[in-house]
């Protein structure tokens, strides 16, 4: 029963889940049995992880029975998505290490991120800058002065 997924994706995700569950099973093996109640802390996560592993094996077997899909080139949109993910991780890391204020980091993140999505076209960049500045400094003002919410960053 195929749901139209590329079998490589199916196998990769199932293997990832198997590894996660195996780590979970390994971590729960040292949990002591229950003292005041019959079940204890370990059996439920162990049963759940075991079931996931079993079902993932079913997914892998089904995927292996399907013919492989034609390999496709790396599309531009995948590069865009990869770039946004990388910029987001860098933005979060910069806030984690408090490299600058929220407003400055957000403005920089949005300029680079939206800029990359519009291919840094000179015609689009003024709008990108306006959006970045308005969001960065606007959010800082609204969240700290109106909603009284702490923001990440310096």
């Amino acid at each position, binding site marked *: *029963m195929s749901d139209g997924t590329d079998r490589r994706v199916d196998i990769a995700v199932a293997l990832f889940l198997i590894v996660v569950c195996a780590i979970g099973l390994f971590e729960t093996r040292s949990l002591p049995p229950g003292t005041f*109640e019959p*079940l204890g802390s370990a059996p*439920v*996560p162990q049963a759940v992880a075991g079931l996931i592993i079993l*079902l993932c094996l079913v*997914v892998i077997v089904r995927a292996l029975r399907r013919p492989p899909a034609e390999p496709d080139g790396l599309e*531009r949109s*995948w590069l*865009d998505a990869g770039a946004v993910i990388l910029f987001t991780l860098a933005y979060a890391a910069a806030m984690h290490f408090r490299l600058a204020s929220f407003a400055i980091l957000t403005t920089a993140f949005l300029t680079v991120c939206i800029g990359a999505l519009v291919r840094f076209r000179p015609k689009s960049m003024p709008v990108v800058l306006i959006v970045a500045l308005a969001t960065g400094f606007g959010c800082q003002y609204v969240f700290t002065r109106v909603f009284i919410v702490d923001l990440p960053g310096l």
Partner: protein
Amino acid sequence: MDGLLSGLATVFQPLAFFYCVLGTVLGIAVGAIPGLTGAMLIALTLPLTYYMTPTDAVVLLISMYVGAITGGLITATLLRMPGTPSNVMTTFDGYPMARAGKPGRALGLGIAASFVGGLVSWVFLWQLSKPLSIWATRFGPFEYFTLIMMAMVLIASVSQGSMVKGLIAGLLGMLVSMPGVDPSSGQPRLTFDWYMLNGGLKLLPVLIGVFAVSQIISDILELGRKVERVEASSSGILIRLRDYRKHGLNMLRSSLIGTFVGILPGVGASIGSVIAYTAAKNVSRTPERFGQGAEEGVVASEAANNATVGGALVPLIAMGIPGSVIDAILIGALMVHSIQPGPTLFLTNADVVWAMIATALVANFVMLAVMLGTAGWVARLAYLPRSHLLPVIVVFCIVGSFGLDNTMFDVWVMLIFGLIGFALERARYPLGPFVIGFVLAPLMEEKLRSGLMMTAGDITPIFTRPIAAVFLLCAVLLLVWPLIGSWRRRPTSDSLAE
């Protein structure tokens, strides 16, 4: 009736009514922007509700829920892009109607059907919630355990795609909810000796990651997609009484289907609209017109998807079981405000419950007014450049996750679950069971363990207590039925020889 009147009085307080209008308008706006969903909006709004009273918070969130389901109708009709997944069936007939020069009529029928669907399901919400919650107070731990088990199997079995993947997604959600200090024994588990995990993974960062971040990544992949548009026109948007008479039966039937599909735990608006559309097509005298601009198609789809809202709130209010993914987020919202969803909600927080019920009614009227007055303008939101919008939403995701406890740990959790959600979605694992498994697993485990404590480890009451046994039987049937179905569909050697 007193409860409802007090709920209505709460919703018509100036601030609460402002939240109701704001929530409905925001819901419609987000619903009208393809790629943004009601679940995303509600998950991102949740952190802002910490500073509200619980009543104001539920008024805002439920209004968003009602608005978001309806807003998707506009882009489904004018752009052939369902604003939310529940509007997919509307595109089949709404867009051909719009291309045939009747965009206003298509929108008008959709809005009228949405309104009727919302009202019909609200009547069930009003009348069923309290009796059902009183009945549910008789449940012991084994009944609850088997009810949640049945709900999980049901969610997995009706989720789009493979049932095995639905089950994996549900189980994965359960596993992800387990790190932290075990509430029954006080023993840390699955924490890897990392103190940040002692409190477990919080619902909000996981939700924002799974619904918002993964959706943003998916949307970026679709940025280059061309949009076929039809100019918005409000001409014919006001539906006459004779149209209600003409489509009344279809509206009522679809609303009832939507309501009952909504009541089933975890089964959302998408499935309700598919079933209602199919039913309308099956009883139509002109089934061949479906897919080519049949008015009945728009009516059936929109009445049903809006009816699921009220239906889905029934198990949430009566039993603390989410009727849809958005209801799972609403459960999280209640818990954030220290309100424990479940059958005792009518006793412990009657004001909040009646405000929820009243909001479901008032938001429908607000939705009708806003949609009739602004459908043409709202349609233009779909042309907002998503390359500008999506990174801004990333900023809101980070602020929302950070705001929970002022810790970057939650931001990293949100980002990691965004990537996991994206990977799961690429491999066609439904995300609904994941979230509902995440929300329900702690309750399910707690009930099982307290039941076993009561019986000194004896599991047989699951089979001998009538209600528990019925739930268990349903779970088994739901699990086995698709397998039997696929086995019966398998070609025999004789048919292959033929």
